[in-house]
């Protein structure tokens, strides 16, 4: 795993675990990899992964069964979205505002493009479900 410079590794690993939960390889009430296995897979110190799991536990994304391991909380998806939303609003949005004010991009243009984006998304979703059938 390639780590970025501007964020603590344990939070980047939390992002990775959340991604796995949102994309559903790790479903509700399923056991997630042990600290040792994930540390080995990502080539990081096990204490860092432990810190990630403690952080996710505090966020209610995973829960700990003593002596067995960590499991995905039933409402993990909502919890992940909640803390990622916080992170986006606090960390990424200021940079975005900085760029649009620097380049003079107005809200009207943003809104128009956002609507186009949403229309594009809406057109995509039925197409992909058709493919599955």
């Amino acid at each position, binding site marked *: 795993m390639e*780590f*970025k*410079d*501007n*964020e*603590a*590794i*344990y*939070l980047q690993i939390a992002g990775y675990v959340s991604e796995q939960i949102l994309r559903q390889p790790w479903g509700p009430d399923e056991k997630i990899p042990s600290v*040792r*296995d994930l*540390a*080995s*897979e*990502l*080539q*990081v*110190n*096990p*204490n*860092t992964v432990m*810190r990630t799991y403690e*952080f996710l536990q505090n966020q209610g994304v995973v829960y700990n069964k003593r002596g067995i391991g960590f499991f995905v909380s039933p409402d993990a998806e909502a919890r992940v979205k909640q803390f990622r939303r916080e992170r986006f609003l606090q960390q990424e949005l200021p940079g975005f505002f900085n760029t649009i004010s620097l380049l003079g991009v107005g809200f009207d243009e943003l809104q128009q493009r956002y609507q186009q984006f949403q229309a594009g998304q809406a057109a995509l979703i039925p197409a992909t479900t058709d493919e599955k059938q």
Partner: protein
Amino acid sequence: MVRIRNLHFGYSRRVPLFENLSLTLERGHIYGLLGKNGAGKSTLLKNIVGLAFPQAGTCEVNGHPAAARLPVVLEDLFFLPEELHAPALTADQFVAHTAGFYPKFSEVQFHRYLAELEVPRQTKLPKLSFGQQKKFMIAFALAANTGLLVLDEPTNGLDIPSKVQFRKTLAGALSEDRCMIISTHQVRDLDSLIDTVLVVHNREIVLNADLDQLAERLTFGTAGPADTAGALYAEPSVRGRQVVRPNLGGSYGKVDLELLFNAVAGDNPAVVNYLNATPARHEPAV
């Protein structure tokens, strides 16, 4: 696990290598020992494993002086030196000769590590390349399951896939009752694997810090030419000046070990002074 107090050591009386060096290492951690060439990384490790004796001060492992080389200490300690001795033995013969000294040695683990590191079992050691020999010894060192594992430049001679596998294997082998100490000057090889960084410089340990705590107290980044006010350390680079600053904003980034090392092992004591002068805060505001 390891307790060094006021260690004085030098290969000659007139040229001291360590003066009043103190250091404590605990179980459950992977320590990265950094230092310039000749700073004494390997010599410090030799003091810890009982291959060099303090001129003054103490160096204890599990409460026993390392220099006494007691069996109870040696059977729970493995030292992998930078230069290996490769006897004319195959893996199985080497185990038959050597594993008996390590009560917790696991043959199953040894074979698994050899397979992970892609080292053949049937070939006699001197017929293997240097990198293969090194991986063989790393596999043995980990399988010995000693409480203290001391690795001197273990990634020297390893190719890129082997370095990746080395980090995976080592990360999977740490447990709460093991203490690992790894010396290196290839800082990038150990990035994110170690949790505590030790820097030996000017005859003492100038830095002994948890990486998480360092990230709370310092920031690492690039700055424009006019923007180095408040920086503890700055060095030029292609991307602009690389600077180390006090972390005043509560942001929480990743420690740039190379930059940190340059900041600490140079003549400028600002970073060390800053870290010593301000007490560590606890959890960062996430």
